[in-house]
């Protein structure tokens, strides 16, 4: 038990340098990218005085008009982050970055969770079934699916679904998160959950309908890796002696497969942690395709405006979330397999 605690502490401490390194990289990359935020914000018609004033306001130059050295800008920003201050956006109202992030993040989380569930369901079911029907045409079909789905481009498959279910059949919405004016009362920011909490059935149905196409798109693209991994792990477990013994004892197939899946689950669990980062990346493309108002599209837009503080804040926020998920997966992994923590 003591060793598990030490493992948890070490693992948690390791996330700190990861975030610092990431923060530093983003800080530098944003500043060596061509173009400055001032021009992006005020446009080409702005007079020179206005440009200077904005630069001063953004902490890029001092009162005398001299540029503030990069390392001082970095330390100013870093000390802010340590105090929990992500800074203020450079554009449109100059709102606190953390407020902007928290407004957009629930949409991404909702989409990611649903996409993850879809990918896991497809991956596990198809992987187990493929292993069960080893070397049959079903196995081959699922293997082909595993390869194709992995190679699918999200905007392409997304548009296909939009055309089929939105335009042709007209049964599902093509874009957006909920029908206009139907947003449930904000509690968690997750519309499905909020509409359940507030017993708002029309909102629940509307947000569920809007979630179906994006989450299936995201789920399908991410499911290939789970299909292939589950199939491989299951084949390995199914060839072991205890499975042969179980079969000899006449256990039904369903029970044997469930038993085998439990044993095959460790590599799948590891992959689940890794996939979470991919899921957020995939969510950016999915969000654009389906006009989903999440953190991905928000981040892309702010990069275009060179909104330094917002981009840095969002990336750090992403890093913290991914590190936390990774930590949780590692802990579960360590809990399941005692060899890890020694």
């Amino acid at each position, binding site marked *: 038990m003591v060793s598990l605690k030490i493992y948890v502490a070490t693992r948690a401490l390791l996330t700190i340098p990861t975030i610092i390194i990431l923060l530093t990289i983003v800080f530098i990359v944003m500043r060596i990218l061509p173009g400055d935020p001032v*021009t992006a914000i005020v446009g080409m018609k702005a007079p020179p005085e206005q440009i200077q004033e904005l630069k001063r306001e953004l902490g890029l130059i001092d009162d005398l008009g001299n540029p503030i050295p990069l390392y001082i800008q970095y330390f100013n920003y870093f000390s802010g982050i340590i105090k929990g201050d992500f800074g203020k956006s450079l554009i449109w109202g100059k709102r606190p970055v953390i407020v902007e992030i928290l407004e957009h993040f629930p949409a991404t989380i909702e989409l990611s969770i649903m996409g993850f569930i879809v990918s896991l369901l497809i991956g596990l079911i198809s992987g187990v079934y493929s292993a069960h029907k080893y070397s049959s045409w079903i196995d081959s*079909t699922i293997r082909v699916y595993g390869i194709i789905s992995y190679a699918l481009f999200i905007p392409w498959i997304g548009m296909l679904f939009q055309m089929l279910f939105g335009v042709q059949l007209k049964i599902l919405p093509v874009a957006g998160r909920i029908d206009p004016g139907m947003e449930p009362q904000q509690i968690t920011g997750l519309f499905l959950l909020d509409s359940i909490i507030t017993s708002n059935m029309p909102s629940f149905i509307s947000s569920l309908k809007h979630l179906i196409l994006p989450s299936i798109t995201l789920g399908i693209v991410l499911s290939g890796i789970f299909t292939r991994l589950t199939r491989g792990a299951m084949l390995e477990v199914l060839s072991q002696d205890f499975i042969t013994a179980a079969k000899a004892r006449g256990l039904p197939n369903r029970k044997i497969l469930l038993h085998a899946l439990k044993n095959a689950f460790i590599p799948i669990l590891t992959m689940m942690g890794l996939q979470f980062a991919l899921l957020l990346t995939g969510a950016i493309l999915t969000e654009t395709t389906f006009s989903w108002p999440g953190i991905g599209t928000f981040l892309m837009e702010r990069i275009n405006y060179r909104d330094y503080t917002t981009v840095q804040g969002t990336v750090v926020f992403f890093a913290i979330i991914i590190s936390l998920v990774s930590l949780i997966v590692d802990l579960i992994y360590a809990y399941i397999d005692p060899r890890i923590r020694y």
Partner: protein
Amino acid sequence: MEKNNNKKAITTTMAIALVVALVVGLVLGYLASMLMAPTAPGVTTTVVSTLEKTVTVGAPTVERLIIGVTDKVTDIDPSNAYDFFTWEVLSNTMEGLMKYVPGTTELEYGIARSHTIEENGLVYIFKLKPGLRFADGTPATAEDVVRSIKRVMEINGDPAWLVTDFVEDVVALDSETVKFKLTVPVSYFLALLATPPYFPIHPTYKPKEIDSDQTAGGLGPYRIVKWTRDVELILEANPYYYGGAPKVKQIIVRFFKDATSMRLELEAGRIDIAWRTLLPTDIKDLKAKPNLKTLECPGGFIRYIVINTRIKPFDNKLIRQALAAALNRKAICERVFLGLTEPLYSMVPIGMWSHIDAFKEKYGEHNTDLAKNLLKQAGYSETNKLKIELWYTPTHYGDTEADVALLVKEAWEETGMIEVDIKSAEWTTYVDQSRKGIMGISLFGWYPDYIDPDDYTTAFVNASWLGYAYANAELSKILKDASVLPTVEERTPLYERAQRIWAEDAAIIPMFQGKLVIVSKPNVDGIYLDPTMLLRYWLFFFTG
């Protein structure tokens, strides 16, 4: 045995892969054909006349109309709002002393009912319409007009120059009278009054700072009831609007991340109007669909080529004239924009008073022979080619920009005496380079601030943001004279002369003018497009 099994498995896998590929291909082909192919011969394109003046409103009241856009609302405070879509929203939720007659570039009174001009155009006095009220019922007076304009001057945000460059002072003479004292006489001052920095705002706006998310609005036909940034904007009819209730009680604006999903939502019937900005290929497809209605008209957006006359060899007028003559505007409009832009032969756009095709008069269209002659006179030949760098930015004018640059190069190189090296830079770097005057030839675009020839001319001569690329003393004098003359009749000959000087100097060469295109359900009416590029939501109504 195992080898046979493997072989069998591989064969089966390949066969299945082939079948899957075929099925996917068939499905894709079917869907693509459904989406792209014209479904019926009827093309329901209507070109809106910019001269249309009568606004017919009739038809039953319908509760809600949904508009899709890929634009965004930035700062909804008129003291800092400086983009067209935000100005559109402000023009529907606020109103100034003057406004445009829908479908035209002519002005009419907004919240004003009369005005007088005194002291040789230095003083404007306006009388307000009686009984004006904000959307919550608060009475609006001349003091509110003065407070709002002075606030813009004090905050000094992005569009503040539209006030501060012209207005010395503004005072309320009584509750219904506003007096402006100008720094110099300005013939287009009434047009300036139709822009958002002059709109009176509700007293709840923060007095001395930008209130970016404030939705209290002003004296327009609609009021904002809900705004979720980048998601949706819900407007409802303002019960206190002096002009009476709009036919459509509720307007919802949905913000899309990309044009394709907006197009698909229109086809799925989930939005009533797809507004700015559909892709040219999508517009072409949608025009052919009988269950949708397409309207188009020339917009106020223009594109042009800037030649820096301070850089050698572009200080030589013959070279600039040769480039103007060789340009193939029609090819750009047809091949890149599929006919959704119009060739432009003057900086003053088509549809605006005083416009003449000055460049066409002087050079014709894609006149390679003339270009060759001019280049020969300048000392160039097939063996001694003029080498130039043509700059464009891929990050500001859309994905088509690289193709525009390519066609400009193609037309110039057709002379056989020019060699063009295309270079690009990200937008903010591009603007920076422009300010520093280090690009010989570059591509730019212009959205108007106010609807007047002055906005399309004066801003480009001796302009710091163009690195002072172009200067001409005679032109500057003509433009200055034209800016103070009181009537269109007096100003027109001066702008015509200015356009001819422009064509002669060929330092800034107009390329094309954007068209405004809107696609709607067939039962949506009351859509007026004009060079102001702003939709008037209060004119919409459903027909059956």
